[in-house]
C-alpha cells in the first residue's frame, strides 16, 4: 500500500502539519502537499468511482491531466464539485468528499454496471434508446439519470469574490519549466514587456524530479537563480498558480489565476481571470505522459511512470512497496531509479522494445533491477488495488509467462507535447514518427491581425522532450520571436544542460500487440468516460471513420479532462482499426479552456447589482421613496405601480387607472427616447425614416409616426414634433432609443452620407412628465406660465416657455385617451418639477401612476405597443395603421418590403379587439385553434392574443389580438385555448374599447 517515506520530499515542509477531512474522516498532511499526495501518503489508493461502470479508481497522474481523482471541495456556499485532487494544494481545514459513489466509496451499488459492461458498449445510448419508445420514459431515462453525472452541483450562492485583470505585453510565456524560464529570461533581458504564467505553485517543471543538471549544478539552483533574476526585472511579471486557459484571435489570451484556493482564509479574490493581449505568445507547456493500453490498466495502483516519480521525489510518498515498471521508452527507467534510491523495490522493468541498451537502462541494470525486454503486461490482478501483473511477450497474444506480485504499476507509453494552446487559434500539427507524437508545425502557426505568426513554442511543447534539447529549442525559438518584434536578443549562450541521452521509443498502442477481444475490453483509453480499446474498435467497425465522429460516438476525450491522456492513444487505436496511418486519421479539435475554469471567474465582478448598468430617471429616488414597484425596461427601472399600505399590485393599478380617468395622473415618461434630427436635409431624411409624410408637419405641431425596417416590419413608433424649419424631435419607445439612434446614424453615415443632417440622442437631457386626466389643464394653469388653453395649445400641438418657473416644452399628446400634456424640462430640474406637480396637484386629486396603468389605458384605447402587438414580423397594415403610411412618397424605409406578395395578401392576421363572453381576462399569448392540421401534424391556428388586461374602466376583461382576416370578422365568436381550462370564447370587436370618438382627449 501507499505510504509516506521517512525522508525526502522536495516540496513538503514536515514541520508544518495540515489537517483535512476526506469523506468526513480526519487526515493529516504537510504544507506543500497536494490533496492527492496527502491522500496517497495516508494509504488512500481508492479515490473515486468511474463514470459509467462505477469501477474503483485511484490516482493515475500527478498534475492537471488527472482523470480519476475528482472530489467535491468545501461545504455550503463554498462547495465545488469535480476538483482535481492533484491540483488542489493542501491547507488546514480542507474538506473533500468523493464523488459518483453511493452509499460509499468502498461499497458502491453502481458497480453493478460493471457486471453489465458488455451490454453498455460504445454508442449504447444511441442504439438502445431508439426503440421501443415507452421504455425511454419509464426505464432508460430514470436509470441513466441516477447513474450518470459526476459531482453534485452546489446548492448555495457562491460566497467568494472573483475578478478580472487586463494586461498587455510584448511576450507572454505560458509554462514555468526550464524552457519557459529561459524564454522569459531572453525576452526580459531584451527589454520586452514579459508576462510568465505557471499553472502550479512551483517553478521549474519536471527537471528537478528528472535529475537534470544545468550549468554544472542541480536544475533547482539554476531555476532559483532564473526566477530571482526575472523577479528583479521591472518589465517582467511572474504569475505562479496561473494557467494559460485559452488562446483567441489576434493574440488574446485568457489566464486563470487561482489566487485564494490554497489559502481560503486570506482576504483575496478566489480566482482571477487575466485578459491578456500579447504581441507574441510562447507556449512552454511541456508534455504529458501517455498510459499504455493493457488489460486492467485502470486498477488503482496503476499510474503513469512520471507520476510515480513525482510522488516519490516531490512529496516523499511511496505509491507501493513493489512497483513494476512497464514502458516503451527510456524515460520510465528514471522512475525505477527514483524508486530504488528511495529504498523501494522494483521487481522488474517490462520494456516492450526488443532491446534497451541506452544510458538509463544500463543504469537500471547497474542498480540490480531486472529488465525484461520484448515484454509487456497481459493483465493486472486486483480489484480495488493491484496485487500482481501477468507478464507476456509484447509480440504475442497475451499468454501469461509469469506473474509478478506487486502493489503498484508505473506505466509509460511515451510523451505527447501539450499542443492545446498552440491549436486553440488555428496552429497546425505534424506527426513525428520517430517520437510517435504530434508536435506543432512551426510553418503553420496561428497568425494575427497582420498575418504574421503570433504563437511559438519552447521546449517539450515543441516536441523537444529531452531536457538539453528543450533548453536549446527554447533559446533558438525565442531568438526568432524577439527578432520578429524588433528586439535585439542578448548574445549570451544558453545554459548547458546535462540529461541522459535517451534511445528512441517503440510505439505501442496495444499491449500485447495481438491481444484479442477479451483483453481489449479491459484496456482503458479514457478513464473518466470509461472508453476502452474495444469501444473505439467497435466504432470503426460500425463505420465511424472520422475521428470527430468516433469521439462523439464513444465519448472518448469528452470528459472534464478533455482527453489529455486518452486522445493520442484513442486515435492511434482508431487508425489501427481503420488500417490507416495516424496522421491520416488526425486529431480532434483542441478547445479552450485547457482545464476547466470556474464560471464565477468568467463572470468576474459582473454579478448581482453590477451585472449591468442601471439607468435612473431624475425622479428615480422620489419613486423609490413613494412605494414604487419596479419594472425593468431595458436598462431602466420604471415604476410598475405605486403601492399603498394594504394594497395589492392589482389594487394599486386599478386605483391609478381610475384616478387618472376621473381626476389626475402623473407619469414619469423620462425614459421615452428623444432624438433630434436637424439640418438642411432634415425633411428629406425624416420622410425616409417614417412611413408617413412627416415633412409637411408645421413647426409647433406633433404627429404620430411609424418606423419600419427594410422588410417593412414595424420596429418603432412615437410622436414626432417639428421644432423649427430644419429640426424635428423624434420620440421613440423607451427601449428603442439607442437602437433607433443607431439606425439613423447608419443610414446617414453609410447610405446618404451627402445629406446634410445630424442626429443627436437627447433622451437623458430631458426629464419628461405626462400630466393626464380631466384636471390636467387645471394643474398646469395653477403652475402658471405657458398658455395651455384649448385654443392656444390644441391637441397635437406643442409650445415652449416657462411653467411654474421651469423652462419647459409642453406637448399636447395623449397615450391614454385623456386630456394630456407631456412636459419636458431639463433633466437637472426633473425632480424639482415633479415634486412641484405632486404638491400643486394635491387639490386636483393628482396621483402618480406606473407603467401598468399606462398599459391598461392604452389598451382601453386600442393603441398598439411595440413588442406587444409587434414581434418583428408585423407590418403596419396588420395593425390597421394604413392611415399612417404615405401613398404619395416615392420612397421610405420599408416601402419596397411592404410591396411583396405576402405582405399584401388578404390572408394576413390583423389586429382586432376581443371581448370574452364571460368577461374574464384571456391569458397573454393564448392561441385560437382553427380546423385541420398543418404540414407538421400540428393543429392550425387562426389568431393569438397580443395584449390582455382587466379594464377597471369597463369592469371586464379586454384584449387585443391578431386574427386571420380579423377586421372582416367583426362580431364573430372564436375560442381561445387556455391551459387547464375549457376554451374561452371571445367576440371579435373593434380594438378601441373606450371613447372611440376621442372626445375626452380633445377638450
Amino acid at each position: 500500500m501507499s505510504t509516506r517515506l521517512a525522508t525526502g520530499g522536495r516540496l513538503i515542509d514536515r514541520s508544518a502539519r495540515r489537517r483535512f477531512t476526506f469523506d468526513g474522516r480526519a487526515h493529516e498532511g504537510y504544507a506543500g502537499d497536494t490533496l492527492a499526495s496527502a491522500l496517497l501518503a495516508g494509504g488512500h489508493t481508492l479515490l473515486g468511482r468511474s463514470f459509467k461502470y462505477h469501477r474503483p479508481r485511484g490516482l493515475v497522474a500527478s498534475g492537471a491531466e488527472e482523470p480519476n481523482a475528482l472530489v467535491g471541495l468545501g461545504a455550503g456556499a463554498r462547495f465545488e464539485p469535480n476538483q482535481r485532487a492533484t491540483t488542489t494544494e493542501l491547507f488546514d481545514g480542507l474538506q473533500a468528499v468523493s464523488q459518483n459513489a453511493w452509499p460509499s466509496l468502498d461499497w458502491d451499488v453502481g458497480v453493478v454496471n460493471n457486471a453489465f459492461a458488455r451490454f453498455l458498449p460504445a454508442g449504447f445510448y444511441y442504439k438502445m434508446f431508439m426503440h421501443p419508445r415507452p421504455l425511454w420514459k419509464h426505464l432508460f431515462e430514470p436509470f441513466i439519470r441516477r447513474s450518470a453525472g459526476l459531482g453534485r452541483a452546489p446548492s448555495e450562492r457562491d460566497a467568494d469574490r472573483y475578478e478580472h485583470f487586463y494586461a498587455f505585453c510584448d511576450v507572454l510565456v505560458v509554462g514555468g519549466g526550464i524552457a519557459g524560464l529561459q524564454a522569459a529570461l531572453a525576452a526580459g533581458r531584451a527589454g520586452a514587456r514579459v508576462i510568465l504564467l505557471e499553472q502550479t505553485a512551483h517553478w521549474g517543471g519536471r527537471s528537478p524530479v528528472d535529475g537534470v543538471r544545468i550549468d554544472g549544478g542541480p536544475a533547482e539552483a539554476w531555476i532559483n537563480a532564473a526566477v530571482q533574476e526575472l523577479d528583479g526585472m521591472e518589465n517582467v511579471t511572474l504569475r505562479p498558480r496561473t494557467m494559460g486557459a485559452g488562446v483567441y484571435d489576434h493574440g488574446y489570451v485568457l489566464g486563470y489565476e487561482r489566487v485564494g484556493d490554497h489559502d481560503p482564509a486570506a482576504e483575496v479574490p478566489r480566482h482571477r481571470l487575466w485578459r491578456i493581449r500579447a504581441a507574441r505568445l510562447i507556449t512552454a507547456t511541456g508534455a504529458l505522459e501517455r498510459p499504455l493500453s493493457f488489460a486492467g490498466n485502470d486498477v488503482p495502483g496503476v499510474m503513469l511512470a512520471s507520476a510515480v516519480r513525482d510522488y516519490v521525489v516531490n512529496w516523499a510518498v511511496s505509491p507501493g512497496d513493489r512497483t513494476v515498471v512497464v514502458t516503451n521508452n527510456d524515460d520510465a527507467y528514471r522512475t525505477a531509479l527514483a524508486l530504488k534510491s528511495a529504498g523501494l523495490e522494483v521487481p522488474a522493468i517490462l520494456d516492450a522494445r526488443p532491446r534497451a541498451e541506452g544510458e538509463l537502462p544500463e543504469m537500471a541494470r547497474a542498480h540490480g533491477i531486472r529488465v525484461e525486454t520484448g515484454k509487456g503486461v497481459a493483465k493486472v490482478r486486483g480489484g480495488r488495488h493491484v496485487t500482481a501483473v501477468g507478464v507476456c511477450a509484447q509480440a504475442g497474444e497475451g499468454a501469461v509467462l509469469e506473474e509478478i506480485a506487486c502493489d503498484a504499476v508505473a506505466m509509460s507509453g511515451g510523451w505527447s507535447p501539450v499542443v492545446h494552446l498552440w491549436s486553440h487559434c488555428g496552429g497546425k500539427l505534424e506527426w513525428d514518427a520517430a517520437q510517435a507524437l504530434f508536435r506543432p508545425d512551426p510553418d503553420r502557426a496561428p497568425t494575427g491581425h497582420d498575418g504574421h505568426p503570433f504563437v511559438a513554442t519552447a521546449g517539450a511543447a515543441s516536441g523537444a522532450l529531452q531536457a538539453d534539447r528543450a533548453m536549446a529549442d527554447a533559446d533558438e525559438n525565442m531568438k526568432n520571436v524577439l527578432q520578429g518584434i524588433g528586439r535585439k536578443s542578448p548574445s549570451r549562450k544558453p545554459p548547458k544542460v546535462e540529461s541522459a541521452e535517451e534511445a528512441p521509443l517503440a510505439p505501442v498502442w496495444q499491449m500485447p500487440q495481438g491481444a484479442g477481444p477479451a483483453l481489449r475490453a479491459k484496456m482503458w483509453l479514457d478513464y473518466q468516460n470509461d472508453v476502452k480499446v474495444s469501444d473505439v474498435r467497435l466504432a470503426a467497425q460500425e463505420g465511424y471513420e472520422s475521428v470527430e465522429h468516433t469521439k462523439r460516438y464513444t465519448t472518448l476525450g469528452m470528459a472534464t479532462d478533455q482527453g489529455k491522456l486518452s486522445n493520442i492513444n484513442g486515435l492511434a487505436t482508431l487508425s489501427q482499426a481503420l488500417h490507416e496511418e495516424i496522421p491520416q486519421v488526425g486529431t480532434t479539435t483542441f478547445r479552450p479552456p485547457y482545464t476547466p475554469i470556474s464560471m464565477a471567474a468568467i463572470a468576474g465582478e459582473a454579478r448581482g447589482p453590477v451585472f449591468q448598468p442601471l439607468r435612473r430617471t431624475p425622479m428615480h429616488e422620489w419613486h423609490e421613496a413613494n412605494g414604487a414597484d419596479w419594472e425593468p425596461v431595458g436598462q431602466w427601472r420604471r415604476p410598475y405601480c405605486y403601492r399603498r399600505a394594504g394594497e395589492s399590485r392589482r389594487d394599486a393599478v386599478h386605483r391609478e387607472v381610475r384616478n387618472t380617468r376621473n381626476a389626475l395622473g402623473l407619469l414619469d415618461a423620462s425614459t421615452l427616447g428623444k432624438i433630434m434630427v436637424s439640418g438642411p436635409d432634415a425633411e428629406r431624411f425624416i420622410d425616409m425614416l417614417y412611413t408617413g409624410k412627416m415633412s409637411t408637419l408645421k413647426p409647433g405641431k406633433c404627429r404620430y409616426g411609424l418606423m419600419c425596417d427594410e422588410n417593412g416590419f414595424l420596429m418603432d413608433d412615437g410622436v414626432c414634433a417639428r421644432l423649427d424649419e430644419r429640426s424635428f424631435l423624434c420620440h421613440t419607445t423607451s427601449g428603442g432609443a439607442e437602437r433607433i439612434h443607431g439606425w439613423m446614424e447608419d443610414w446617414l453615415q453609410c447610405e446618404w452620407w451627402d445629406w446634410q443632417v445630424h442626429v443627436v440622442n437627447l433622451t437623458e437631457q430631458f426629464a419628461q412628465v405626462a400630466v393626464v386626466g380631466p384636471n390636467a389643464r387645471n394643474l398646469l394653469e395653477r403652475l402658471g406660465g405657458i398658455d395651455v388653453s384649448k385654443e392656444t395649445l390644441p391637441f397635437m400641438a406643442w409650445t415652449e416657455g416657462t411653467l411654474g418657473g421651469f423652462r419647459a416644452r409642453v406637448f399636447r399628446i395623449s397615450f391614454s385617451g385623456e386630456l394630456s400634456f407631456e412636459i419636458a424640462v431639463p433633466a437637472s430640474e426633473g425632480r424639482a418639477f415633479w415634486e412641484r406637480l405632486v404638491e400643486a396637484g394635491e387639490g386636483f386629486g393628482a396621483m402618480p401612476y406606473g407603467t401598468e396603468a399606462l398599459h391598461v389605458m392604452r389598451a382601453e384605447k386600442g393603441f398598439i405597443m411595440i413588442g406587444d402587438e409587434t414581434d418583428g414580423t408585423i407590418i403596419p397594415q396588420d395593425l390597421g395603421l394604413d392611415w399612417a403610411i404615405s401613398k404619395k412618397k416615392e420612397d421610405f424605409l420599408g416601402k419596397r418590403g411592404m410591396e411583396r406578395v405576402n405582405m399584401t395578401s388578404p390572408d394576413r392576421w390583423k389586429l382586432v379587439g376581443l371581448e370574452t363572453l364571460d368577461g374574464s381576462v384571456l391569458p397573454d399569448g393564448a392561441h385560437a385553434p382553427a380546423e385541420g392540421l398543418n404540414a407538421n401534424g400540428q393543429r392550425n391556428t387562426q389568431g393569438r392574443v397580443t395584449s390582455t388586461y382587466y379594464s377597471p374602466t369597463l369592469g371586464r376583461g379586454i384584449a387585443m389580438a391578431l386574427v386571420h382576416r380579423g377586421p372582416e370578422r367583426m362580431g364573430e365568436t372564436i375560442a381561445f385555448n387556455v391551459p387547464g381550462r375549457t376554451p374561452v370564447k371571445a367576440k371579435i370587436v373593434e380594438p378601441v374599447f373606450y371613447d372611440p370618438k376621442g372626445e375626452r382627449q380633445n377638450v
Partner: protein
Amino acid sequence: MLLLTCPNCGVTAEESEFHQGGEAHLRRAGPGSPDDAFEGYLFTRRNPHGVHFERWRHVFGCGKWFHAARCTATLEVFGTYPAQTTEPPADIVAAIRAKRPDWEGFR
C-alpha cells in the same frame, strides 16, 4: 477577439468596442426594384472563406461606421477605411493583392 483600427479616430481597440454590421458595399434596392434585386439586397450575403469586406461601427468610441477588409480564414485584417464609399479604395485593394495574389478581386 479581433483587434481593429477605426479609420475615423485612429484608435486601435478590441472587438468588444465595435459592433459588426454585416457585409459591406451592398447596393440598396428601393421601391420599383425587381423581386430578385430586392431579395439580393435584403437576404443574399457572401460568406467567403477568404477575403471579405465588412461593416463595423466604433460604437463605444467615436460612433462612426467604417469598413474592414479581412480574411475570414486567417482573420488577417488588410485594412480599414471610411464607410463613405461604394467600393474598396485602391490602397486597400493593393494591400489585399500583395498578401493574396490569387484573390479574384472585388465583385
